[in-house]
Structures are given as structure tokens and as C-alpha cells.
């Protein structure tokens, strides 16, 4: 349940583009055609799915205060969290380079479709932002970190796909000259972001359900306790009666 909730939350509610404006630069620059938008979106999902879990491991075992305790008790007081920016960005840049080499070697067709976008991605705010939000939201396990990476990647993919499709169509409309191109894209993105805000209500219902269940559970516990008390008082009474006899 936790996984499903985080997955939908990172796609729709905390959508990288519409809620936090991450990766806007490439979102605006590469969204003129649907085909290139799909390529870049796929590359972002791919890289986020690799770097977020990797940076989670880095954060958990090297950077957090006290994370170095696995090296020995004398390292337990170390706090390297000030290094997280430089470590994260180095990981991302290295991974992007590695992914590029591996993809080129093993799947030339994938390289032809993703290849030109991979270098762009090292400086895409969405990738670093994914890792930084992973750190600041204190995601608990490696599985959840992977989930978060893929979820936010898909959210970004959906966003760029949608705006590319709209921009292809809007070419035939008569937009005021000064708004053509960049201006209208900004305003459309704003309107889409307002639309995406309505997803904010998606999870509150689930929360209420969970609370009701908790309540029901606590009521059951209380009932059980009452039953036990009754039972004990009954047995006490019986005991008392027996002794009276």
C-alpha cells in the first residue's frame, strides 16, 4: 500500500514539472515535437530510476549524520551531509556517462533514440531534484527510493508528452504574436498545473479510510479489554462464590 501510494503521489500530486518546476529548461526547449519529447522523457525515467536508489545508498551509508558507523564505532559521530550536493551531482554525472557508454555498446538502436539526450540530462534539474527531494523527504527504504525515482520519472514523461502534443496542435491556432512560442507555453503549463492540483485530493480519502480502520482497530482492542475484564470479574465472582460455598 505504501508503495502504491508513493508511486501515484510522485506521478500526479508531486509532479516534478507542475508542482515543483523541476526540469523546466529541457521541458520548454525539447517539447516542440512529440517524438523528441518521448525520447527525452524515456531517458529521464531511465536515469532517475538509476540515480535515485544509488544516491539513497550514498545518503544512507556515507552522508547522513552517523551513517559511517558501519566502519567502526569511532566514525559514528561523523556528519558528512554538507557534502551531499557534490556527491549527488558527481554520481549523476558519472552514471549518465556510464549509461551512455553501456547503451551505446549493447543497444545501438536505443542509443540512436536516447543518445543525444543523455548528455543533456546530467544538468537537468529534475534528476538532481529527484535525489534532493528523496533526501529531504526521508524516504525509508531502497525499494521506496527506486519507486520514487520511477514514479517521478513517469510524471515528468507525462508532462513533457502532454505539452509537446499541445504545442504541435497550437501551431494552427491564432495566438497573439507576442505570446507565440514561449509565452503561450508558459501560460498553458500554468493552466495544466492548476489542473494537476486537483489530484491533490486523491490521497486524502485514503487517509480517512486508514484512520477509520485505526479507530475500528482501537475500538476492537478496547472491546477485547472490556471482555477480558468482564471475564476476570466473572471468574472472580465464581471464585468468591466457590469459596463462600
Amino acid at each position, binding site marked *: 500500500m505504501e508503495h502504491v501510494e508513493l508511486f501515484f503521489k510522485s506521478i500526479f500530486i508531486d509532479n516534478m514539472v507542475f508542482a515543483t*518546476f523541476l526540469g523546466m*529548461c529541457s521541458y520548454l526547449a525539447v517539447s516542440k515535437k512529440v517524438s523528441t519529447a518521448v525520447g527525452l522523457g524515456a531517458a529521464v525515467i531511465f536515469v532517475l530510476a538509476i540515480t535515485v536508489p544509488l544516491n539513497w545508498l550514498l545518503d544512507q551509508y556515507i552522508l547522513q549524520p552517523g551513517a559511517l558507523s558501519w566502519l567502526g564505532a569511532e566514525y559514528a559521530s561523523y556528519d558528512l551531509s554538507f557534502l551531499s*550536493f557534490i556527491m549527488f551531482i558527481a554520481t549523476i554525472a558519472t552514471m549518465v556517462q556510464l549509461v551512455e557508454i553501456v547503451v551505446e555498446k549493447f543497444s545501438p538502436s536505443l542509443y540512436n533514440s536516447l543518445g543525444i539526450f543523455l548528455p543533456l540530462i*546530467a*544538468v537537468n534539474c529534475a534528476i538532481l531534484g529527484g535525489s534532493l527531494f528523496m533526501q529531504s523527504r526521508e524516504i525509508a527504504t531502497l525499494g521506496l527510493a527506486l519507486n520514487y525515482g520511477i514514479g517521478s520519472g513517469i510524471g515528468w514523461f507525462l508532462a513533457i508528452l502532454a505539452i509537446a502534443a499541445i504545442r504541435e496542435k497550437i501551431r494552427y491556432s491564432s495566438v497573439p504574436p507576442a505570446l*507565440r512560442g514561449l509565452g503561450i507555453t508558459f501560460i498553458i503549463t*500554468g493552466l495544466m498545473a492548476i489542473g494537476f492540483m486537483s489530484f491533490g485530493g486523491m490521497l486524502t480519502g485514503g487517509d480517512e479510510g486508514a484512520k477509520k480502520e485505526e479507530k475500528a482497530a482501537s475500538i476492537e482492542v478496547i472491546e477485547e479489554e472490556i471482555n477480558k475484564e468482564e471475564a476476570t470479574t466473572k471468574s472472580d465472582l465464581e471464585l468468591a462464590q466457590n469459596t463462600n460455598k
Partner: protein
Amino acid sequence: MAKDSRLILDPLTDNNPITIQVLGICSALAITAELEASIVMSISVLFVMGVGNVVISLMRNIIPSKIRIIAQLIVVATLVIIVDLVLKAFAYELSKTLSVFVGLIITNCIIMGRFEAFALGNGPWRSFLDGIGNALGYGIILVIVGFFRELLGSGTLLGIPVLGDPIEKTGLYAYGYENNGFMLLSPMALIVVGIIIWVQRTRNKALIED
């Protein structure tokens, strides 16, 4: 000398990094709900860009071109760590508001873009001016957006109420004016920038895209 002054003045208007070059929008939008945060963000970027451009320009003949992206990222990341630590030490509340967006200065496309396009091919002094100019161009948009969002959204500027008191109905509020809370939500940042672009391109027809 006239050329040098253009390095600073051009990015403020006709070659603005946000509205014309479309760089560095990520962080520009998310933190502009308050004027104070926008100003602090602009100053941070000003520092990182000025110093970073000089450092890269000094190292431009040493950096091998194959690994220049990583070298640039390390320089920016170091400068951003300095900014982050300074903010945490002297303005802790504000650094909480800016949260991860200070870190995201690293991937601010303006910085990488200017490194690539300018600092790698020019001397330190001209690179410094270029950095300052572009950071100011970035800052001016941030401040305009922050100004309107805070004024219309919560009726304050830098946290000081300027339109009167909404609860006691003084000032403008006495005439039935209401704060537009919608301005504080993130989508409005996009729409405000869209309107700025509209105004700018109406004034300068040469910038209109076809």
C-alpha cells in the same frame, strides 16, 4: 569599454536569460511566492555565477574538453555548498523556505550555459562581467515575479503589510479589497512569467517568434 558595459546591460533586457534564452527557469518559479526569498535567491545566484565564471575562465586552458561538464559541475557544487552553509548559518528560517532549491542552483541551466558559451572562451574580467550581467537579468525577473505574487497574494512586501490590515479592514481592505490567495499557488508563477514575456515582446517586436 562600451563593449564591456553591454555584457552587463544586454542580459537585463533584450538577451534576458529567463525570458529570451529560456534558461534557469526551474528555480526561478518555485521560490517566488515571497519577495524576500526571490531576493536571497538572486544574490546567491549572483555570487555563484560571478565567482564560478572567473574560476572556469582561469581554468579554461587546463580543463580537457571531454570531462569539462564534470569539472564545471564540481566548481558550481563547491560554490553552492558555500552559499548553503552561509544561508544555514545566518538565515536559517529562509534556508528552510528555499529548501532543496539552493542545491538546485547547481543544475541551474544559466550557470552551465554561461560557462559553456562564454567563460570557456574569454578572459576572467569579461567572464566576470558576463556572469554578473546574466545573474542580474535572472534576478530582475525573480524580483518582478516575487513582487507581484507577494503583493497580490498576501498584501505584503518583504513581510511588511502595505495594503492595510485584512482582518481589521483598514487601508484598501476597507473598500472591499481581498487578497488573491491564488497568486501564492505555484501555477501562478508560470502565468506571471508568461505575462512578462508577453509585455516584453509587445514592446520589442524583434523578439517575436514565428
